[in-house]
């Protein structure tokens, strides 16, 4: 039980919490995506901490990190594509006005 490990995990938890707050409370699509970025960052730090302090010889930990980074990038790309399309058709990316998606 090392301090570094615990401290890294707490940081991850904090980022996770801030990210959730941001994703749920923001009205703008881009801001929501930034919240998601923070959530994923929290996950990343947890992963690296576990790798470093529990299994440093197993490289699959770093592999996992690479995959998560890829996912972050992809999700941002697709999300921004959707934002462009939405902006073209409606003129804004505010999520409050997007209730008509229900129809």
């Amino acid at each position, binding site marked *: 039980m090392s301090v570094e490990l615990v401290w890294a995990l707490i940081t991850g938890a904090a980022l996770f919490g801030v990210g*959730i707050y941001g*994703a*749920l*409370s*923001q*009205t703008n699509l881009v801001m*929501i995506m930034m919240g998601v970025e923070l959530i994923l960052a929290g996950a990343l730090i947890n992963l690296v901490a576990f790798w470093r302090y529990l299994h440093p010889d197993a490289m699959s930990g770093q592999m996992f990190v690479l995959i998560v980074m890829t996912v972050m990038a992809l999700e941002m790309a697709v999300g921004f594509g959707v934002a462009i399309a939405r902006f073209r058709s409606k003129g804004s990316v505010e*999520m*409050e006005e*997007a*209730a*008509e*998606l*229900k*129809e």
Partner: protein
Amino acid sequence: MTFIGLVILVPLLAAVAILCWRKRSRELALSATGISFLSSLGLLFGPGSELILPGLPNMPLRLVATPLTALLSTMVAVVSTLVLIYATGYMAKDKEKNRFFATLLLFIAAMQTLVLAGDWILLLSAWELIGLSSYLLIGFWYEKPGVKTAATRAFLVTRSADLGLYIAAFMLIASAGSSDIATTLNTDGSIAIVAGIFLLIAAMGKSAQTPLHDWLQGAMAGPTPVSALLHSATLVAAGAILLIRTAPMLPPETLAVIGVVGGVTALVTGLMALGESDLKRLLAASTSSQYGLMFLAVGAGVPLAALLHLIAHAAIKSSLFLGAGVFQHSRGSTALSDLAGVARDQPRIFIGFAIAALALAGIPPLSGFFSKDTIIAATMAASNAWLFAPLALAGTVLTGAYMARMLRILWQGSARKKTLVGLKQMSIGFGGLVALVIVLGVLFPSIETFIAMPLPGNRLAVVLGLVAALTGLLLGWFIPARTLMGPLLEKANQGFSLAGGFDRLCVRPVFVIAHACEKLERRLYAAVLAVGQTGINIAHMTRNSDEQGIDLFIFSIVRRTIKLGNHARTLQSGLIHRELAISVIVTAGLFIFAAIGLLMY
């Protein structure tokens, strides 16, 4: 051997040449028959020869030149040469000369093969070939109405009778083990009786004996040279030739039947001839009658008598027909009413005609007298003389009667002058045959020694024959047919048909069967169509059930799913942040739940 080959092959090759070359058909035909005639003389005066050709396994084809066959071959050659000379004149104005001469040559080749045949297979083939040539020649002027029917009728009747020959030939070959005619003539016992009956049936067909005599009347629709060659001297002779050749084999029972058939024919067709109103049909009926007398002779057990009468009749009847042909050209028809007085148009032809007619009636010293005499003597010497002799005498009387009647009608009338084309050739042929008629009587004794068969002689027969002939002639000349025949005239004109004749007995039942078969077939066809229709109906039903049944079911499921989705949609608010919050909370809740579960267990 070479003579046999020449006799048969030269006319055949000439026929092929005419068909290919289509020029100078007359010259080709005449030269072919001339060469054939000389070769047959070579056969007659030379030693007996034999030609064996490969045929079926163990049954080679044979052509033999015995005295009998050589004599017959010569007869065929002589008559065909003279008739051919006549035909060049008769067909002078016809446009289809090539076809005519080619078919005639084909017939001559086939007839020679038949006469010279030494085994049954070849005889059967030649028999069929002469039937075919007869059909082609009778139907020569096929565009004239009624000709095609006559040709088909002749072909069908003779063909049906040929079945007898097939059965007899197969029986004889099977019992003797070889197809050689000479070997099979040693058969005896019940096979001989039955085979003999079948041979008789075949002979009846070809020689136009009752009840198969009708086709010969219709065959007169062909050109007169055809009638002269085929239907007086050669084709109809095939029947008699068959019986003469197989005579050694025939047992007395069969001979009795043959004799009865011949006698009845002589009587019936003689009466028909007496009542006839057409010259050629009269001569046709007369031919049947004379062949009936020949069958009578065979039935009496003296085939040589039949042979002599056959040769004499060949010359006589051919010349009668050739004369009738001249009369036909002169007046343009063969009906006796049209021909009244034609004797005065062509006096010289009529003289020859009258000579031939008297010869047929049996007046000495013409050949007919001698042959008739032998027949009457034979019947009187036979075992069934009580039946055969009166029939023979009745036949002689009738012969004289219709011949005299014919001469009377032709003589009594006024002349109508008309120049004829080709009269010279016709006269040459005609004259040749009449000369034969006169001369053959002298040759008969040498023929007797040549063939080496017994021949009964009988003074009584001679006297009776003469008396019968003269009676007939006087009756025919002085008394018209209506008075002579009385109620029989109508029956005679109908050909003495019994029970409606062949039409009612054979043709109508066949048509009934044909109609029934057609109806059956139509029903079967409808049934097949119905089966097909059932298959199609099943397919339609399947498709409909699939479309309505299964598709409906599937679409109803789809609709219900959509309705369910619509219902579920009302549950949501559509606001994105709310949705996000809900998903986060629920996921967290699930996670905690799973963690607690893991910790507990």
